[in-house]
């Protein structure tokens, strides 16, 4: 019990604090509307009724957590998955584009890293640009890519996947170049004494020792891919996906809808990162790199 509390107690306390703060903020931000409504209809409210009202408005400035949870329950469990009102349907649209882009970006990133490590000219000419490109707000190009691809007839999942590919690609390149170079001179010399070919050195030394770096960059990459997909869904006219739900919600002032989409996106991100971490632990343990 004591050990459990040491492990999870602090986190639970902080999360609890955030929820309390959220309720307090909801009272503070929504009070104006309650008072305004009272002014029009007349009548008195006790303090308790006043607070209860700030937590149960239709279009509050900040919906209380239980309202958001109720909305999520309503739009996931109580709607069929194929319905356009189902949050699971929208989450799936976003998730599929994210996964496609993440997969492509990872493969491409690893290939480019292999090239950079093995080819001196490529290292000298491409690497500085890869690093420089990380300082550029790539997301700003997202709407343009979407519109251009739409104009040449590419629609649906692919344009979004391209953007999330682009975003997940850079962390992987940078991480993998570091990873492929992580074997030290002693180990490389050892490979040479064994008369290993470049190919053998790569598969038996560089690739295994790059694994910790791979998973670290995959965790960053998958989070970036999700952000990319959500932003990519904004300019398509708010049709499908979590990004579209955000935009539609902000057009019509449906704050509860925005927050529920946001919470859904957050749990998607958390789930994806958790899956990568699980695979990481399993792989590293099998390879004897963990403890």
């Amino acid at each position, binding site marked *: 019990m004591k050990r459990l509390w040491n492990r999870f107690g602090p*986190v639970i306390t902080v999360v609890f604090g*955030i929820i309390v703060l959220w309720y307090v903020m909801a009272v503070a931000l929504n009070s104006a509307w309650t008072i305004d409504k009272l002014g029009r209809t007349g009548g008195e409210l006790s303090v308790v009724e006043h607070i209860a009202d700030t937590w149960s408005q239709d279009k509050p400035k900040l919906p209380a957590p239980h309202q958001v949870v109720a909305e999520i329950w309503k739009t996931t469990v109580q709607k069929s998955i194929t319905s356009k009102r189902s949050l699971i349907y929208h989450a799936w649209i976003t998730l599929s584009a994210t996964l496609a882009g993440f997969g492509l970006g990872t493969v491409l990133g690893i290939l480019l890293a292999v090239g950079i490590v093995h080819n001196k000219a490529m290292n*000298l000419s491409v690497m500085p640009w890869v690093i420089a490109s990380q300082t550029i707000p790539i997301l700003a*190009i997202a*709407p343009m890519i979407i519109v251009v691809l739409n*104009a040449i007839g590419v629609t649906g999942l692919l344009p979004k996947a391209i953007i999330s590919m682009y975003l997940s690609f850079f962390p992987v390149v940078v991480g993998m170049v570091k990873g492929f170079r992580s074997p030290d001179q002693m180990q490389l010399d050892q490979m040479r004494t064994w008369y290993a070919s470049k190919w053998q050195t790569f598969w038996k030394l560089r690739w295994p020792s790059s694994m910790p770096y791979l998973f670290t960059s995959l965790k960053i990459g998958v*989070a970036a891919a999700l952000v990319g997909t959500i932003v990519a869904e*904004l300019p398509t006219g708010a049709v499908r996906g979590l990004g579209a739900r955000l935009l539609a919600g902000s057009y019509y002032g449906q704050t509860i809808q925005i927050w529920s989409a946001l919470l859904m996106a957050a749990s998607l991100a*958390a789930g994806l990162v958790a899956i990568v971490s699980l695979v990481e632990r399993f792989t590293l343990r099998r390879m004897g790199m963990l403890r």
Partner: protein
Amino acid sequence: MNTTLVLGAIVFWLAAWGLNIWLSKQKQTRFIRVIVPVIFGITLLVVWELLVRGLNIKAVLLPPPSMIGAKFVDSLPILWADFQQTFIKGALSGYFIGCGAAFLTAIAIDRSPFLQKGLLPVGNFVAALPIIGMAPILVMWLGFGWQSKAAVVVIMVFFPMLVNTVQGLQAADHMQKDLMRTYAASYWQSLLKLRLPAAAPFIFNGLKISTTLALIGAIVAEFFGSPIVGMGFRISTEVGRLSLDMVWAEIAVAAMAGSAFYGVVSLLERAATFWHPSQRG
């Protein structure tokens, strides 16, 4: 399709690549290390230009670099106004407030290991979330002006900065802390003279990550509503009008602002943490 231009692009690419291979086999001087990426960048631009002209790609799909350059020079006043609105008012103010607040929070919870143990996982978790989704809410609360953009930036940079600072404050090792104790140093003395300097590499790492986040936050927040000036506003409206040369000019501004911002922070880092192994090179 103009075959000579396309062939020219291919020949130019091969020639430049050959030159780079030859250069990279020479002795690695500083000059080589600068000139090789520059040649690569120029090659990309030239090939882009020649291919767009050679394959007759429409300017609404992909304008050639020369056209973007011309548009850039033509619309300098607009670009400057957008830059001021988005970068200086939105991104920079948000960056300072966010990083400052995160730094102070990290110092404030420094004395409570309990809070640190709780905040680190939560902060790491929040740093991986698509926080950019908060943008529509903040635009709704704070209006279309630059204040809402600054607020988005504050939220985006807060958690990466907090996590880095908290980790940095734990970076001083036990021997050093024990030494401070044998000197009978107070908490504040040991914080100012040992732990903050030891944390500097981590803090600057957070500051560098935040530069890109700040610019992204400020631009994307403008997609959800803005006055009729700003880089994000310009990008989304000009995309709608299919004048992609203006969009690319705006992207060039964003790229330059982003790299310059990052560069300035790196220079500060070099000045402040000259003693760290990674800076001695």
